[in-house]
């Protein structure tokens, strides 16, 4: 049902942090990402003691909380009539259809997130005006414990 949103995400392979969209409407989104033990950052952060970098947790929150919701809002919840946009977002294309720009992230971390954990990101829209989307975003682990919370804002351009 939300497949077209995943197809429009401009992030690919090692930098795509959206696995599943559980729910999305005009006011918010719930999505999941499972931390992949073979992700590029664990080897060096830290050797022998892999911990998910806060920057990556922030990115996961932004991709699900802002970009997924933003795509839903600018497409008004409907898959584009022609699949040109989806085709343009395929990795073979030099240009992505959607170009997101993060403008602010104010994040607090509550506990570590370790490789293999399945994370749930919940985002509630504060406003979407003049192309700017601002949301309150929370991240929980599989045990339901809060990993992070923050306020995110960004701009989403259709290329």
């Amino acid at each position, binding site marked *: 049902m939300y497949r077209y949103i995943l197809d429009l995400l401009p992030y690919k392979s090692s930098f795509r942090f959206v696995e599943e969209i559980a729910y999305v409407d005009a006011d918010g989104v719930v999505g999941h990402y499972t931390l992949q033990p073979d992700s590029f950052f664990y080897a060096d952060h830290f050797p022998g003691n892999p911990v998910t970098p806060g920057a990556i947790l922030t990115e996961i929150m932004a991709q699900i909380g802002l970009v997924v919701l933003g795509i839903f809002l600018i497409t008004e919840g409907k898959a584009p009539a022609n699949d040109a946009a989806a085709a343009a977002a395929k990795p073979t294309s030099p240009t992505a259809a959607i170009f997101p720009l993060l403008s602010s992230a104010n994040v607090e971390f509550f506990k570590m997130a370790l490789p293999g954990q399945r994370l749930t990101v919940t985002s509630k829209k504060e*406003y979407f005006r*003049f192309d700017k989307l601002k949301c309150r975003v929370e991240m929980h682990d599989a045990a339901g414990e809060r990993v992070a919370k923050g306020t995110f804002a960004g*701009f989403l351009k259709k290329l």
Partner: protein
Amino acid sequence: MDRREILEELKRVLEPYTENKELLRNINEQTDLVKDLKINSSNLVDVIIDAEAKYNIEIDFDSSEKMISVGSCIDVISDKINK
């Protein structure tokens, strides 16, 4: 409300988004929000939303595009409140 009164109130709207409060004290109609006050351009949306709430007005996309300097902000705000 005259332009001078709007300018005084506008200072309070701009305050949370202006790092250098000293600059804010001496603004005039020529002051550019981004170039002079160093407001993050992405926060201009928030300035507009806060101004809407303060003056109980609605600022559309075309008007928002004009709000570059203190003077042009006052133009838009006074135009809307006198409607």
